[in-house]
């Protein structure tokens, strides 16, 4: 590696900070290592791997593609190693590096799936994989947006999990009582906002340490929903825990597109809202007065204060708006999937949303992409489990967490949050 570095021209060094250089080299090394692992796996890969492009019940049936497993894995390994070398070389412009990252990433996934599914009786369901990814990612995207808003304003939110939980509970109960999913959605949003208000009161007004607070709010949410579930909902589940489900809304025309149509354009309102929310939050944060002020308050509250921006006011607004998104995300767990609430139904998704937020470096679009990636991995784990593959699905499910640890340790890209994130503002 040192010889590579020595060969680099001085001008390029000027433009690359030490952090960036370390990140680039570690990313390259990681890719090469992954490629090497794939290459080793390829020696133990026999038979063929089948990819089914359509589900059994799709209107338009696409063919099932079968590839020879061993050579495919080898090819992927070569691509991954090549893209890693591009990173290590570092002489190429940013565009080439992005291309290398994309190629490397896809090759890793493809090579890995090909290895895992090789020799299986059943084909790998591609459309199922994408549909599942979208379903799993929907609440993660919404939760991550909540975090994006709070943390850009300087309020650390580790209570997304608690917000999810209360919103999921509220949606189930209100949906059951009113029989209306619309009412349930509004109630969930309200619940998310109220939990946000709790975060805001204690962190902004009473200056409670925000991490402590998040942990306690999560316990509170778990205790409250758990108690109400045991006391009230469980004994009357017919009346209180049998909410109607959100129906998929097919977008005319688009939903008829083969393969992509059913995946992207025949979803529940929550999916469409999540997509729109990403655009909306991006617009809000980067294109409006409100967003400028929110970000200034999260980065340098004193500077904002000296030009007359109300630091506390902006933080309150951001946390409450974030609560609305967390509320929508929470609703997904009940009325967006099975309809019924069970205790601790969100099983750590709030923390995965937090991980997506950090991996996405506090930016709504990148956070959403990371949420989709985490959804993809989770869905992959459950698919591989049902195919009986050599890779234990439990280990695959750890990937989002492991990736986040690697990210915050600065191995892949510098992860820098808003400068004043978590710092209470005392005038």
């Amino acid at each position, binding site marked *: 590696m040192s010889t590579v570095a020595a060969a680099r021209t001085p001008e390029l060094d000027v433009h690359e900070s030490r952090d960036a250089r370390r990140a680039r080299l570690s990313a390259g090394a990681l890719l090469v290592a992954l490629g090497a692992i794939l290459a080793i796996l390829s020696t133990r890969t026999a038979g063929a791997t089948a990819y089914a492009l359509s589900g059994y019940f799709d209107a338009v049936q696409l063919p099932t593609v079968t590839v020879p497993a061993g050579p495919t894995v080898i090819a992927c390994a070569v691509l991954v190693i090549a893209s890693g070398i591009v990173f290590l070389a570092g002489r190429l412009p940013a565009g080439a590096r992005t291309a290398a990252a994309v190629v490397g990433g896809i090759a890793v996934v493809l090579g890995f799936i090909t290895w895992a599914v090789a020799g299986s009786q059943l084909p790998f369901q591609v459309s199922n994989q994408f549909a599942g990814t979208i379903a799993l990612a929907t609440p993660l995207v919404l939760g991550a947006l909540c975090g994006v808003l709070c943390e850009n304003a300087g309020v650390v939110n*580790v209570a997304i999990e608690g917000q999810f939980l209360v919103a999921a509970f509220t949606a189930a109960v209100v949906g059951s009582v009113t029989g209306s999913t619309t009412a349930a959605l509004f109630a969930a949003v309200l619940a998310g906002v109220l939990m946000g208000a709790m975060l805001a009161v*204690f962190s902004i*007004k*009473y*200056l*409670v*340490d925000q*991490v*402590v*607070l998040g*942990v*306690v*709010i*999560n*316990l*509170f949410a*778990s*205790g*409250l929903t*758990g*108690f*109400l*579930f*045991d*006391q*009230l909902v469980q004994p*009357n589940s017919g009346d209180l825990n049998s909410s109607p489900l959100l129906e998929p809304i097919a977008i005319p025309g688009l939903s008829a597109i083969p393969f992509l149509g059913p995946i992207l354009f025949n979803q529940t309102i929550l999916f469409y809202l999540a997509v729109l929310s990403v655009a909306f939050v991006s617009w809000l944060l980067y294109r409006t007065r409100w967003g400028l002020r929110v970000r200034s308050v999260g980065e340098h509250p004193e500077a904002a204060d000296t030009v007359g921006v109300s630091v506390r006011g902006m933080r309150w607004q951001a946390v409450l708006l974030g609560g609305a998104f967390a509320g929508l995300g929470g609703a997904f767990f009940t009325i967006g999937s099975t309809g019924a609430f069970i*205790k601790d139904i969100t099983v*750590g998704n709030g*923390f995965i949303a*937090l*991980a997506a937020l*950090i991996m996405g470096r506090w930016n709504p679009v990148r956070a959403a992409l990371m949420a989709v990636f985490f959804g993809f991995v989770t869905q992959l784990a459950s698919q591989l489990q049902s195919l009986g593959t050599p890779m*234990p699905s*439990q*280990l695959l*499910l*750890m990937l989002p*967490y*492991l990736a*986040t*640890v690697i990210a*915050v*340790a*600065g*191995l892949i890209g510098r992860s820098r949050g808003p400068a004043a994130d978590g710092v209470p503002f005392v005038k």
Partner: protein
Amino acid sequence: MPEPQTTRGSFWERHGRSWAVTAMSIVLALLVGAIVMIVSDPEVVTQYAYLFTAPQLPLGASWAKVSSAYSALFFGAVGSPYALAMTTAQAAPLICAGLGVGLGFRAGLFNIGAQGQAVIAAILAAWVGFALPMPPVLHLVVAVLAGLVGGAVWGGIVGFLKARTGAHEVIVTIMMNYIATGILAWLLTTDAFLRPGSRDPISPPVEPTAIFPAFYGQFHLGFVVALLAAALTWWLIERSTIGFAIRAVGANPRAAATAGMSVGRITIVTMVLSGLLAGLAGTQFALGPGGQGVPTPLSAGLVGTVGFDAITVALLGRSSPIGIVFAGLLFGGLHSGGLAMQSMAGTPVTMAMLLQALIVLFVAAPGLVSAITPYLRAPKNKSLVGGQA
């Protein structure tokens, strides 16, 4: 980060007030809990239709509901020697993990990872307990040590990453919790951790030689170990050179570095010790005898939410080992009382968890407690000791 520092000076002024805030927080939490109980019971709520015509009906029903729940809670926590024994068993892991979190606080570190550290420790302790037959005493000692090492390593990784790369320990520990949980879930699919011929994700029972011996009911050696751990932790923080460095780094890392202490090394040492104490909590779950006199076998939910409960314990105990012992006993009582509340008064045990969260919420915001109870308000700008020389 909270930096619960012991500011010396007028002992009573400081501690008296914090006791008062704690007591008031408990009262407030019980009040809120009572309200939640009343509004969530349809039978009681329907009585409120008569609030203006026959107020004794709703008020009586409310009183009956709340008083039966809370008296069951009280009885289940301290009402009998058996209940007390159970409270000690519930408190033991809370004290251990609380000590770990509290030690982290003293060094300015936020160990949210007690959960994962306890899980790893429980895995190792239980595995030694069921898979490696050994003579009595030795078996228990080895099993406990295995757990301690597991917890220490799991915490040490976080300390190492923080010291070397500056990775924020809050994020890393949260993620490490899930990684630990994932490892447990995976291990419970492997033959080494399953009962022969079974695919249920439950390990074989721990051999009797590796169980903490019980003295009375569920009162077992583990609780004594927890108290010893508290005493040792107290000594470590207040009387040892390492503790001195930990406190210095927690209070002013720059001054500590200027005085020749290595902040990175102290960070790692603190996380190792913190993980070790959380690991001790994990061994309490893996090796402590339950209601039937044997430990619950290793399974997905074995350690419950001990890591998060530990944070509440450390906060309530204000990071001092003595405070943590009391806080652990309080929440241990809440847990065992909660079970009694469920069986005797039909009030779900989750109420105990809610109360716990509420108590800490109030304790963490003394400003709120003071706003509700003005006479607790602190005198402003009053210097504790001395003046300008």
